[in-house]
């Protein structure tokens, strides 16, 4: 009897906390369907008095103010997908090489890579800006993709996996006459698929959600990402049009929320696997 009472109490507590997490998002969606007058008037109505989709048509189609939202969305998705593809490919190769193959100097290379996990991002972002600026590559996709591919996180994550990968599978393939590349592509990668997805989801979220780097590395409206684009709108044309801003943030959040909800299990696995050990 007492036990059930305690359980109910905990569920109620958990539900109240859940509301605290959901209310800001629900309010964002609610506001995005209000006109600017109703939004600014304040109040606590969750269902808009005058339900309108004009904020969405305005931001998507652009009327007096041109919001290149499709372009921003494309930039973010393209950089996210391309960057993720590169990261997963090169990190898997490097981690497998370091964990399993006779890579020269691997005793030094792996610690060198891993030690950079300690290096804060602030140390590299200014010189990296200069580097791209000197090469005339600011405001290009290169700047939105390549800096993320140097991160040693993926090598670290996959190295641990490949270290514990059973040798027998590789040896069997080797006896069948497969070379290193064939073993890697046909035996190793297929069995590493779950952990590769983990890395992919992490990388995509990181690139899609990054703020400071794309903010300083791009300055033309065409090359903004969605996260920096909405910040620009908040400081510019939409400065106090909260209905429109909330429509914009809702649109920006939908793709990443889908990725998050689908990939949640992999994400959690990645966090707990790299956490420690």
């Amino acid at each position, binding site marked *: 009897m007492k036990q059930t009472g305690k359980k109910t109490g905990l*569920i109620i507590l*958990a539900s109240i*906390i*859940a509301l*605290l*997490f959901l209310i800001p*998002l629900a*309010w964002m969606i609610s*506001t995005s369907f209000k006109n600017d007058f109703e939004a*600014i*008037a304040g*109040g*606590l109505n969750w269902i808009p008095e005058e339900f309108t989709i004009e904020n969405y048509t305005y931001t998507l189609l652009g009327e007096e103010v041109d919001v290149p939202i499709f372009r921003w969305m494309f930039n973010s998705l393209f950089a996210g997908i391309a960057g993720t593809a590169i990261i997963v*490919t*090169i*990190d898997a*190769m*490097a981690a497998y*090489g370091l964990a399993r193959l006779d*890579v*020269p100097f*691997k005793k030094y290379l792996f610690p060198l*890579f891993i030690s*950079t996990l*300690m*290096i*804060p991002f*602030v*140390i*590299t*972002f*200014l*010189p*990296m800006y*200069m580097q791209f600026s000197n090469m005339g590559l600011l405001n290009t996709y290169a700047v939105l993709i*390549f*800096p993320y591919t*140097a991160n*040693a996180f993926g090598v670290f994550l996959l190295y641990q996996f490949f270290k514990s990968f059973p040798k027998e599978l590789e040896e069997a393939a080797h006896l069948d006459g497969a*070379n*290193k*590349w064939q073993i890697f592509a046909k035996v190793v990668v297929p069995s590493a698929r779950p952990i590769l997805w983990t890395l992919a989801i992490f990388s995509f*979220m990181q690139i899609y*959600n*990054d*703020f*400071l780097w794309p903010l300083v590395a791009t300055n033309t409206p065409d090359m903004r990402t969605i*996260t920096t684009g*909405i*910040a620009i709108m*908040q400081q510019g044309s939409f400065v106090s049009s*909260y209905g429109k*801003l909330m429509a914009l*943030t809702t649109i920006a*959040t939908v793709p*990443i*929320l889908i990725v*998050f909800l689908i990939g949640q299990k992999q994400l*959690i696995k990645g966090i707990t696997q790299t*956490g420690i050990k």
Partner: protein
Amino acid sequence: MEEARLPMSKAKRDRRSKLTSFLFVLPYLAMFLAFLFFPLVYGIYISLNDYNLLSKEHPFIGFANYTRIFNPDSAMNALFFEGLWNTIKFVVFSVPLLVIIGLALALLLNSLPGRIRGLFRTIYFIPYAISVSVISIIFLWILDTNSGLLNNFLMSLGFDPVPWLTRQPFAWISLVGATVWWTLGFNMIIFINALNEVPEDLYEASSIDGASAWQKFIHITLPSIRPIMLFVVITSTIASFNVYGQPYLMTRGGPGDSTEVLLMGIVDLAFEQRELGMASAMALLMSLIMIGVSIVQFKISNRNQEGRKAR
């Protein structure tokens, strides 16, 4: 790896094999050198120059940027240390909350019936998926003095509206609150995993000894999750040191300069005043401070650990 079928000398085979293996590492190594190692070295070099983007000459000036930062009469001294002080305030306010509430939520979730645990875990974890600019703009709106949800709610209860973003200490409360809301889920996930790895028989043994839930928490749970606790403290500290988006978008560094964190000062110096050399020097110092703080946290935790063993 032996290639028995090929009639090659052992040394030659060995070299071939090493070369092939090296090709596996080469693509990542190239990215690593170009976008991590090179910037690191280049950043140190820039910090030793009077590197203003607007002037053509960038003379080498040795450690002059650094001595200016440490010279109390220099404007750079005020910029750096006031920014650093504001950043440290944010770290001190946010990290304990991120760690303690993160652990509390993990404990709460673990005590829920299995069927609904996953649902609540997902809900608490959702904000982590959203970008800092979206989070900041949502909170900017919710905390708006006149039209915001929070003040309208408080007014409906008969309270006066609170200037959440334009007066202290409310500005700090708002920034810390938004940050906790945003990143708490990450710490919670790490703690859930740590709690699940505490051996069940430890709890059973202490139940037989008649230990209360609180005693179990203090004497079994906390010591068992200690390394994870350290990891969460260090990663949360680093993340809080890097704070930028929230004050940049929510308070614009205000009221006054009270929430102008160091990274905002560095970005402003680099991209508004175009003083890349000085900004790089500050970024380097900031990184050294962050690494130093991590090492100290690690040492303190290890010393306590040894003290415990000695007893």
